[in-house]
């Protein structure tokens, strides 16, 4: 008798859970929130998730949705694991009245796994600031958007910064640079473009891998001390970053000669390193700070109502949180643009949002309306160019916060774009894909 009742209870819970999820209202735009809140990369994942979902709540509360279409979402834990990421994608792609709007995998590995699936299912894979760099060629990768800036672009911006500090790009000749990278798909992506630039400008580059997860770096930093380079590029992720800074302090390497990529440049990367992190420089396509109007609006319309995502309110305005807000802004603006063409006030399908992304044009005027001037850079995408921005700002950690030390430094598109097109053409040949003709599709 007891056993039957127990089994019945389980069945009831399961049925209720599934039926609850199936209740779909007509005017909703579903966005999967497949991020990671546990594991070694949780600070990044939870920060970005919090920023994005808070921005969606702001749009729902303050504006009533996008022209009346409210945003909905469902969280799924991917644990930064490819198989879990694929499973979360399969689970979430058909939810909502028009299926998933687009997907932010927040992991280069998961992006790679989803490229073919997203293209087949016609759901845009938006990998802002990460992902497969050669997908910036939208003719070969119609549904993949490595937006704002790809790894290769920001790498050229870093070299420009080094040139700036040295007094001119010609002064880079003969300098020594070490590329300390996380030994994963993400970490290895910039090796070819660094080699190309080394040939172009005459500097020497040494690539030193750090095996995942990166909390053992003694031998690497001893090697760096032997080389004694002019600059170290820190291409880390998660716990590798503070470990690198502490190891650099122990090896006696000055931290203001270490330049981190934007996945190594957040508060969570430097605070655990304590004093060892002072002077460390990192690139970023968004800045920190909570006194931007858009963040203030979130405080007013979301947190004042007790609906905010972040339990630790001091994280609002941090780099990862603001990055999540940027993700949210891009998503909402793309849907808004799609609605302009395919019907204001109607939920958009993935294919329509793809058009919205390709015709996205967030200029300075729009940034002012959104309250995000200086928060992110103006974005303009096209059918062939799925990147859109390409510029980064550099900021330096002073022990308490990130201080921006440069303006937007653009990438070297003349060097990077041909490499992207070459790599994309190789992929197209391997897979038997016919590249789209953007001129024909212009509409």
């Amino acid at each position, binding site marked *: 008798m007891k056993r039957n009742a127990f089994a019945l209870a389980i069945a009831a*819970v*399961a049925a*209720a*859970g*599934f039926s*609850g*999820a199936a209740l779909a209202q007509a005017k909703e735009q579903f966005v999967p929130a497949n991020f990671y*809140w*546990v594991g070694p990369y*949780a600070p990044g994942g*939870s920060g970005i998730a919090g920023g994005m979902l808070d921005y969606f709540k702001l749009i729902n509360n303050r504006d009533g949705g996008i022209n009346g279409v409210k945003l909905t979402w469902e*969280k*799924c*834990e991917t*644990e930064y694991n*490819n*198989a879990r990421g*694929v*499973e979360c994608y*399969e*689970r979430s792609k*058909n939810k909502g009245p028009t299926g998933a709007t687009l997907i932010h995998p927040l992991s*280069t*590995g998961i992006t*790679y*796994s989803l*490229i*073919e*699936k997203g293209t087949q299912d016609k759901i845009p894979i938006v990998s802002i600031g990460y992902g*497969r*760099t050669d997908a910036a060629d939208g003719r070969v990768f119609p549904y993949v958007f490595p937006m704002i800036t790809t790894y290769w672009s920001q790498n050229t911006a870093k070299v420009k910064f080094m040139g700036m500090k040295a007094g001119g790009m010609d002064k880079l000749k003969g300098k020594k640079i070490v590329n300390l990278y996380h*030994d*994963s*798909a*993400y970490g*290895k*992506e910039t*090796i*070819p473009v660094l080699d190309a630039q080394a040939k172009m400008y005459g500097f020497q580059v040494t690539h030193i891998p750090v095996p*995942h997860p990166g909390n053992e770096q003694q031998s690497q930093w001893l090697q760096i001390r032997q080389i004694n380079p002019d600059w170290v590029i820190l291409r880390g992720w998660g716990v590798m970053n503070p470990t690198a800074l502490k190891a650099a302090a122990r090896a006696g390497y000055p931290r203001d000669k270490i330049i981190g990529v934007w996945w190594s440049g957040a508060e969570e990367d430097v605070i655990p390193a304590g004093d060892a992190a002072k002077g460390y420089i990192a690139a970023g396509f968004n800045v920190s700070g909570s006194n931007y109007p858009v963040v203030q609006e979130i405080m007013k319309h979301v947190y004042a109502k007790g609906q905010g995502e972040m*339990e630790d309110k001091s994280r609002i305005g941090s780099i990862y949180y603001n990055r999540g807000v940027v993700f949210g802004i891009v998503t909402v603006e793309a849907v808004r643009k799609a609605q302009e063409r395919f019907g204001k006030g109607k939920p958009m399908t993935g294919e329509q949002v793809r058009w919205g992304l390709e015709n996205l044009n967030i200029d300075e005027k729009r940034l002012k309306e959104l309250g995000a001037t200086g928060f992110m850079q103006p974005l303009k995408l096209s059918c062939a160019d799925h990147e859109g921005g390409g510029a980064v700002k550099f900021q330096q950690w002073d022990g308490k916060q990130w201080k921006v030390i440069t303006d937007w430094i653009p990438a070297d598109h003349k060097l990077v774009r041909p490499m992207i097109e070459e*790599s994309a053409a190789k*992929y197209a040949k*391997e*897979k*038997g894909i016919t590249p789209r003709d953007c001129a024909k599709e212009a509409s």
Partner: protein
Amino acid sequence: MLYREAGQFKSSYAEDQRIFPILQDRIAFWAVLVFAFAVVPAIANQYWFAAILTPFLIFSLAALGLNILTGYAGQLSLGTAAFMAVGAFMAYNFELRVPGMPILVSFALAGLCAAAVGIVFGLPSLRIKGFYLAVATLACQFFVLWALQRFGWFSNYSASGVITAGKIEILGVEFDTAAEKYLLTLAIVSVMALAAKNLMRSETGRAFMAVRDMDVAASVIGIPIMKTKLLAFAISSFYCGVAGALYAFCYLGTVEPEAFNLDLSFRVLFMIIIGGVGSILGSFLGAAFITLLPIFLNLFFGAVSHLVGVEIPHAWLSNIELIIFGALIVFFLVVEPHGLARLWQIGKEKLRLWPFPH
């Protein structure tokens, strides 16, 4: 009452040597196969194929491989994921570099490459046993991953080291939907499971079990220890290699060497421990437990929080899942150390007596 063999007489040697001597077993087995091949493709949706059934089958095959080595031959190995990686990358390379290579031949050749690697790293087994052999196979795990990352040839010199598997085309039929990939995986796994079962019932299998139980006595009665142990490594690595190739082609579509890390080796080991070492059915049960339980817990807790109305912080949910998963593993090992296959066997024994307790 239902599960009696009264009236079933065997009148030929073939009938006597069947895998399933009891008629009811045979009926149940064929029912499961017909269900898997014919009914599931009709009723399941893409999520079930792509995220639940195909990975379950692939890990069953890998667990089968490890069970042959550890369960039947007694050689403890932590290099399972490395053999899967070899299979995945070599299948990709055969498909890429040999024009017009049939995909099944690629899988078989990839398995043979994995078998070759298995033989090389199985050589320590001739000198050391048990825990120490596990450490030696750990070397295989790390070495294979290092080699795949260091030598660009394996990933066709791609910048990130990630390979994307090509299309699957057999006799002109393209297998590109999730349902078709599921059927292909199911077919390959069924054939290889049947081969494994018959292999373990044959002289080879008996030699493996003799080496497992007491290798000195086995060598005394004339079983060649070196050949037997290396054959166990070869066959096991072949199975793991084919599982790795299926993982790349039929499941994820892209793989990087990091996907086949030590974590995966341990997962497969846990699958056979929970499922039952030395049992073919145990590989399937263990794989089902380890691959499906986390998803089930995820959905269950989602439903609970939906029902109760309280939004539990997402990080809590993920951590609770991990806690429950670990607790269930400990529970099962305490309740039945011989694994789920033994529980199944006990169930069948009780069914023979049912409804009479004596």
